[in-house]
């Protein structure tokens, strides 16, 4: 009886104690990005596709694929949100399963850039020390383009307000002169 009581007490104490931090298993996924190189012009829209495969033997759990864009030449300021408004996609994969994700991107700066997708674990069970899985870089070359020029728009931009201003002034002045005549 005493032994049983001791064992029960021991089990209760062990259960009450916080569980020791387990070493987090690395994400067993592989990310492939297509195409490896994109050439476009400023304002051009293009699509990159990533295939994420669960290479492990256990379900991946909730994971998040996140697109990022970085300038790899010069000092061009990059705001990835401008490049793509939907940059995160949540998924979970069974062992051996793979999923293709499409990312619609618009080139909003001219220069040389790298687009890549990083896969991170998702949810409230994330410990914070998990390793990330990153796709190979997609090399993005954006040529500058000037579709509209000041020269083309200038005649309209100047002439229309000028003509309307003259017409308005003429009508107002004529109205005042008539008022004075009366």
């Amino acid at each position, binding site marked *: 009886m005493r032994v049983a009581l001791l064992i029960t007490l021991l089990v209760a104490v062990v259960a009450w104690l916080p569980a020791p931090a387990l070493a987090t298993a690395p994400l067993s996924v592989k990310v492939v990005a297509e195409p490896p190189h994109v050439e476009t012009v*400023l*304002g051009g829209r293009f699509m990159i596709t990533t295939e994420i495969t669960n290479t492990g033997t256990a379900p991946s759990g909730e994971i998040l694929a996140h697109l990022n864009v970085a300038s790899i030449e010069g000092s061009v300021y990059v705001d990835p949100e401008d490049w793509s408004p939907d940059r995160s996609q949540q998924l979970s994969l069974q062992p051996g399963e793979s999923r293709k994700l499409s990312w619609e991107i618009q080139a909003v700066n001219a220069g040389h850039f790298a687009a890549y997708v990083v896969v991170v674990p998702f949810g409230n069970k994330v410990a914070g020390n998990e390793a990330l899985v990153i796709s190979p870089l997609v090399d993005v070359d954006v040529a500058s383009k000037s*579709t*509209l020029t000041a020269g*083309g*728009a200038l005649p*309209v*931009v100047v002439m229309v307000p000028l003509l*309307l201003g003259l017409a308005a002034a003429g*009508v107002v002045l004529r109205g005042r002169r008539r008022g004075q005549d009366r």
Partner: protein
Amino acid sequence: MTIQVAPPAVGTVQGVRAGAERQSRLLVVAEQECRDLWTSGRGLILLFLFSVLLSGVTYLTSTNQALNFLEQRESVNLVLQFAVAVGVLATLVVSADGISGERERGTLETLLVTPVPRRSIIGGKLIAALSLWFATFLVSIPYVWVLARGVGILGRALALGFCVGTLVAIGLGSIGLLISAACNSNKTSIAASIFLLLILFAPTQLPSGLPQGWFFEVLLRANPVASGLAYISSILVEGHGWTQDLALLITPLLTAIIAGGALILAGPRLVRLTRGVNSE
């Protein structure tokens, strides 16, 4: 405003012509209102300010490097949306002055003693307010042309702007006249109308990066201005067909029907003399 109209037709013989006469009276009021708007210079000054704004936006779109990344279709869309929005604002401001302005200037009494049905007065005022929308649309044509040439969307952009803008202008013009008829003071009427327009434009200014769930969708679809502008974008930028997003035009259409209907039904009761703001 002073109107000279023949006395109304009385008796069975003239009864046949009553409809035609009612229509002609509407046109007489509309003509007089348009003359007031355009020969006083008020309409032309508004058009001049409109063209200055549109010139600024067009110049920025075509020269500014930060905006130049936009595709040409997006530039056309930006300027067209701006033209529709400001054109509708001008229409609303003019219609908001319609009845309360006459009350405040003391000219409503003269107007009411003329042998013109009150519905014709309201209809004429709405037509005059809409004439400003048509004028702003005409002014915006060269701006749209300069941005859309070479992309092959000029005709589509102009047809879209005209149809959607006219629909929204009829709805908001009617609302402006209803507000104007209900207000004693012109300042209150114009302030209320502009405030209403700001509320309607607010959802169009939300950043595209924000999460857009069902609430945003409801907000967009319930708003005649935002849904009208979204319809323009869906065709010009996203390349959708004319019928694909037709549901976006339900709210502008309903607004035009409901507000226009309310104006026709309640208008005769609303256009009346009230105690002025200075008579207390």
